[in-house]
């Protein structure tokens, strides 16, 4: 290196110092010239429309094409950008008309005819009509003309929609007919899941990857420009003034990503967020003390239980299974383990489900009865009941405390002389082993998908679901007949009757230790009006206002 180079080098470093100094100075100046020495937090934190609702979530939306979404955040966004043919009633699992004004189901349950709402346009201007529904269906149906079916991206679509429908045809401009391979009355509820949102045919023509970031539906809110979605940061949706259900009450619906739950609570406390979602029970308790906040809550559409593998000793004995139910104090469990945020369960269906049976006969806490039943089954102090109790370790929506639940239950059981040995496994492996019939007894649970009782009772306890959702490997022909029949009739009263009969039989057989339903809680600012807790954890924001 020559001498001039050295000088040049030194000058370079000096320049560098000047530049960095200038940059730091500019930054400081930026703050000093604000309001006072530093601008206040609120001056820079929120620059959205005064009339906007900011909804805080932990993880970003995955994509904005309802056909391929598979996260709850994606469901929340798509439930407001798109409309389904049928929608859930506000705050309930029952159904109301959506883009279909009415529908008829043929007597054999094989043909569904939908009368479509007229004069509705997609955000991109394309008209919503029978052809749009046909284009949408063909795009998700494997092998149909114009199909965009992708087995890796349409798992839920296949489970809930496309495998239950053979074809969809346009009868006239505003009527479509769906033909089913077999009667399946839960289909209507499935069509209300946000994955069944109607996508503009123009958007569909641009392909799956395009719809994922350039959504176009008929919903109350729309993505005005693709740049309004900043990944892992915020998704700014504008109100759709032409919404068929009436213009939304607010100008913007913003989904803001705030990864830490406690930070979401702080932000809703300071007003940086209007609604905070997915908070821990401790944070919800803190929100309860704050007069500026409202905790909107109800028993969630979920169930928390212990599965007893009915094909393996010692759980082939009904007395043993019933005894383990009587031995657990669910009320105390709810208070002690979940801060009172678990509603104790008698059976399978949570209270928000339309087929819930308040008169179900179940298992109150009765350790003496448990000991009697164990004695009947041949177990006593000299010959105690022993088995391996498998537990997952991560928090689940239906059980936020993970394997601590197993420890608590083990305690209850030991009080009636049962020796359960807890073993834990990593979640993915746990799930696979449980399905492979490798567990004797295991923690389990379920988050409902569509609010239909079939999604609990058939998915979890029908003989046909063994090794899939039914990992207690329970099978009762009488229950199976009732569940099958309930899939074939479409009258809700008849179905309710059938499901309640089936659930009572299941509870008597006790393939599970029924524990409870985790509360579904959302914290909002007190000035947020008409926010309904949707049991399926989607939220329709069209009618939500800000005082």
């Amino acid at each position, binding site marked *: 290196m020559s001498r001039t180079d050295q000088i040049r080098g030194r000058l370079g470093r000096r320049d560098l110092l000047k530049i960095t100094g200038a*940059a*730091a100075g500019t930054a400081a100046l930026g703050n000093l010239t604000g309001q006072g020495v530093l601008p206040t937090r609120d001056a820079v934190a*929120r620059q959205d429309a005064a009339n906007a609702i900011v909804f805080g979530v932990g993880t970003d939306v995955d994509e904005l094409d309802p056909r391929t979404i598979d996260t709850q955040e994606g469901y929340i966004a798509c439930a407001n950008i798109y409309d389904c043919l049928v929608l859930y009633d506000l705050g309930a699992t029952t159904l109301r008309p959506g883009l279909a004004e009415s529908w008829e189901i043929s007597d054999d349950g094989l043909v569904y005819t939908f009368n479509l709402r007229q004069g509705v346009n997609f955000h991109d201007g394309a008209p919503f009509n029978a052809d749009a529904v046909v284009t949408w269906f063909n795009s998700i149906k494997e092998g149909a003309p114009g199909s965009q079916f992708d087995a*890796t991206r349409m798992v839920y679509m296949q489970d809930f929609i496309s495998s239950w429908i053979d074809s969809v045809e346009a009868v006239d401009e505003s009527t479509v007919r769906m033909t089913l391979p077999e009667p399946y009355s839960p289909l209507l509820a499935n069509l209300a899941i946000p994955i069944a949102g109607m996508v503009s045919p123009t958007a569909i023509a641009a392909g799956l990857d395009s719809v994922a970031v350039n959504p176009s539906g008929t919903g109350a809110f729309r993505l005005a420009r693709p740049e309004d979605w900043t990944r892992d940061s915020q998704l700014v949706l504008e109100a759709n003034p032409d919404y068929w259900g009436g213009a939304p009450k607010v100008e913007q619906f913003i989904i803001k990503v705030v990864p830490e739950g406690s930070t979401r609570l702080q932000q809703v406390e300071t007003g940086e967020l209007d609604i905070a979602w997915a908070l821990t029970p401790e944070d919800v308790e803190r929100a309860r003390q704050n007069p500026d906040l409202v905790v909107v809550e109800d028993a969630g559409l979920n169930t928390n239980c212990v599965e007893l593998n009915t094909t393996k000793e010692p759980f082939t004995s009904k007395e043993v299974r019933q005894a383990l139910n009587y031995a657990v104090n669910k009320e105390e469990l709810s208070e002690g383990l979940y801060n009172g945020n678990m509603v104790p369960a008698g059976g399978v269906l949570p209270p928000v489900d339309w087929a819930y049976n308040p008169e179900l006969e179940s298992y109150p806490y009765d350790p003496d009865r448990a000991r009697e039943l164990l004695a009947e089954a041949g177990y006593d102090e000299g010959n105690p009941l022993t088995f391996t109790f498998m537990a997952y370790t991560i928090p689940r929506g239906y059980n936020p405390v993970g394997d601590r639940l197993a420890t608590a239950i083990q305690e209850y059981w030991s009080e009636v002389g049962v020796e359960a040995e807890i073993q834990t496994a990593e979640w993915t492996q746990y799930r696979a082993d449980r399905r492979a019939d490798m567990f004797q007894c295991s923690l389990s649970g379920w988050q409902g998908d569509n609010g239909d009782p079939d999604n609990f009772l058939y998915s979890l306890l029908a003989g046909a679901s063994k090794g899939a959702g039914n990992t207690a490997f329970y099978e009762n022909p009488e229950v199976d007949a009732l569940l099958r029949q309930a899939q074939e009739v479409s009258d809700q009263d008849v179905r309710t009757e059938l499901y309640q009969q089936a659930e009572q039989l299941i509870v008597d057989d006790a393939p599970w230790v029924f524990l409870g339903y985790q509360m579904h809680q959302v914290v909002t600012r007190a000035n947020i009006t008409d926010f309904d807790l949707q049991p399926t954890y989607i939220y329709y924001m069209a009618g939500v206002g800000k005082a």
Partner: protein
Amino acid sequence: MTRYVTRRLLLAIPVLLGIMTAVFLMIQLIPGDPATAMAGDKGSVEQVARIREELGLNRPLPVQYAYFLKSAFTLNFGDSIRTNQPVAGELRQFFGATIELSLAALVIALVIGIPAGVIAATHRASALDYGTMIVALVGISTPVFWAGIVLIYILSFRLGLFPISGIIGTGIRLDRITDAYVLDSVLTGNWLAFRSSVHHLILPAFVLSTIPMAIIARMTRSSMLEVLGQDYLRTARAKGLEDRLVVIRHALKNALIPIVTAIGLQFGSLISGAFLTETVFGRPGLGRYVVQAIGARDYPAIQGTVLVVAVGFVLINLLVDVAYAAIDPRIHYA
């Protein structure tokens, strides 16, 4: 010099190959694969098998490895399994934000760390020295996520001085060019976005800077102490030079080499620290991107991020080595 740089760059290839191989083997060891993640909790065994086939996960491991290397060397990582968008584009989008945060932290670390070290050295064994070094020790020992949460609670939540979370104010529209928010707001002349993004950057950058700042301060102090005892400093003083100039021109300049090494190494820890900081402060960036990718067993996204960070690390180290020559004319690379 050119030859040296070329040789170093060529040497980087086996290093990167080793890293990519290690990453490939490691993601194979995590239980579960993209297919089980995509099929979800409720997906059937058949669905998992079908997805596995579509993604080529049922091919023999060496074949998968070959495809993996091909994608790494062509820089075409394909689409993210989680978001279905091209990984290269997503990396570009998040890279700017992470680099901006890391650089801001580095600037803070240098601007505070070096003077602190110099002052401690020139006031050796005084209260000032002990005080500075105790603060530095606390700085090294404090985990980034903890410092972040505490500072958010006090400065943002209680005192309302900074936004609690995020990278820019809710609802602010910013046309993104480089995806470094402060830079983009300057480039587009968006004053509101500039103020907001700088205000969102200060606290996380400060938190991220604490550990490197402390290390740099301690390193500066010990390196300065070594130099301050040298004969040529006595000569400089003897010829009547002002004390301040002696320290800055003669001592600090000669003490810089180990400090520059420390800076290079710290840049690596800044990137990994940025991963935690991004989560605590709710900022988008490579760190949160890769954490989510690991959760979803999103192989293309994981390998893409690792490669980008590894290349960055190799380049920074090279830059540091080249910087030696610029600082110390005695060092030659042949």
